[in-house]
């Protein structure tokens, strides 16, 4: 037996390595926590990423400050005109918002939720081409945890995929593994948002659903990961095949994922905390 093993020790080593890798892969895929190896690698690479990002942003800010001075007069005129228009609109909105606040306070009375936002800067992105992952400069030291929701004022960005002490990786909703339960705000019809190479697609929409170009798509809150009501995007195109059971809508995402530099990580309220227990 020992002779057999020693004769084929190289083959045994290779097979054992494959088994080890598959076990590791299976364990990290099913386990909700961040693996220790990933945490170590991210902690080691963080100083490099953060320092390079800091230098690059300084230069970028200097450049944009210079650029922004050009055509500033024209822009000023345009903005003054826009301001007048906006003031008129604001008067209407104040009236609406007073009514809205009164009604909302009544609704929130029953289940008051206090959410805290952690400000974070994007310091890097996925090292490969197959995944839409961004790295942020906030980690477990700043109380960030896996599956916390990440957003911007424009709309939903993604969720925390893994956490190390100083940085976390964010799985963007455009990642091809991402799924977000969503609904059309106008008529509350449900669908599922898939990340694709081209952007976002809302699939599994009922074949008879009334859907229009420009419809706003928001998160539905189903599944417990993303809270309800976060803007995802607008319908840009509707695809429908006669033989298919469902319609597919191509979306314009609310967030420009090529431009994001800062995000907010949402710390769930105590009433939501059961959703994030790992």
């Amino acid at each position: 037996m020992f002779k057999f093993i020693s004769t084929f020790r190289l083959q045994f080593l290779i097979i054992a390595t494959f088994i080890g890798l598959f076990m590791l892969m299976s364990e990290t895929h099913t386990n909700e926590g961040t693996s220790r190896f990933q945490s170590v690698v991210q902690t080691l690479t963080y100083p490099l990423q953060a320092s390079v990002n800091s230098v690059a942003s300084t230069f970028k800010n200097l450049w944009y400050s210079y650029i922004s001075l050009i055509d500033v007069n024209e822009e000023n005129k345009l903005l003054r005109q826009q301001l007048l228009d906006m003031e008129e609109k604001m008067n209407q909105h104040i009236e609406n918002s007073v009514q809205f606040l009164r009604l909302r306070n009544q609704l929130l009375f029953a289940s008051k939720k206090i959410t805290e936002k952690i400000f974070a800067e994007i310091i890097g992105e996925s090292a490969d081409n197959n995944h839409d992952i961004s790295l942020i400069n906030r980690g477990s030291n700043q109380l960030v945890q896996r599956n916390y929701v990440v957003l911007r004022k424009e709309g939903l960005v993604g969720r925390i995929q893994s956490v190390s002490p100083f940085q976390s990786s964010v799985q963007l909703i455009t990642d091809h593994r991402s799924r977000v339960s969503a609904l059309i705000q106008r008529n509350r019809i449900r669908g599922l948002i898939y990340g694709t190479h081209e952007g976002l697609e809302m699939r599994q929409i009922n074949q008879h659903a009334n859907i229009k170009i420009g419809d706003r798509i928001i998160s539905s809150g189903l599944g417990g990961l993303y809270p309800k009501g976060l803007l995802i995007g607008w319908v840009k195109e509707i695809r429908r095949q006669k033989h298919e059971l469902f319609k597919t809508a191509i979306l314009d995402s609310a967030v420009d994922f090529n431009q994001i530099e800062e995000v907010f990580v949402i710390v769930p309220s105590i009433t939501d905390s059961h959703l994030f227990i790992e």
Partner: protein
Amino acid sequence: MMRLFLLALGLMLIGVWLSIVFNNYVQFGGLKINWLLVFMLILTFRHSNLLLAFLGMLAGLIMDSLSHGIIGLYGTSFFLTLLLIIQVSKLFYANTFLAVSLAVFSMSIFEGWISLSMIDMLEPGVELSTNLLNSTLPVAFLQGLMTPIILQFVIWGEKLFLRDLA
């Protein structure tokens, strides 16, 4: 052996730096070169040493940590690809730019196919063919184009570390 180990380790560190810093700012057509893979492919084509397959596995694990977080996925695909190279490298004359470029191109496609298939296995619903066409194929082509430059760098490294072998 020890010198080859150190050279591979050094190239891996450079690969990590290029992946997390250079790739963030310089992308060709929005595509990120998998520097770690290219370095390991070229080294393995030139030396056909089993040690490189194991180091490649480590490089894959680092790539896993810096991307999707499923530790072992790229580890497996890198390891399998480098093992294949060790077997087939005798068929190639790996000292011309064209031969190494073609080899890197084909092996990058193989690695991409393996890793995407495994992602598909773990999380069904991933559009394998679309990903292969939109991502793996163009990146493999880009990596093939970049190979002569990287090969020059690797040869320079070999002259520094492995004088007797280079």
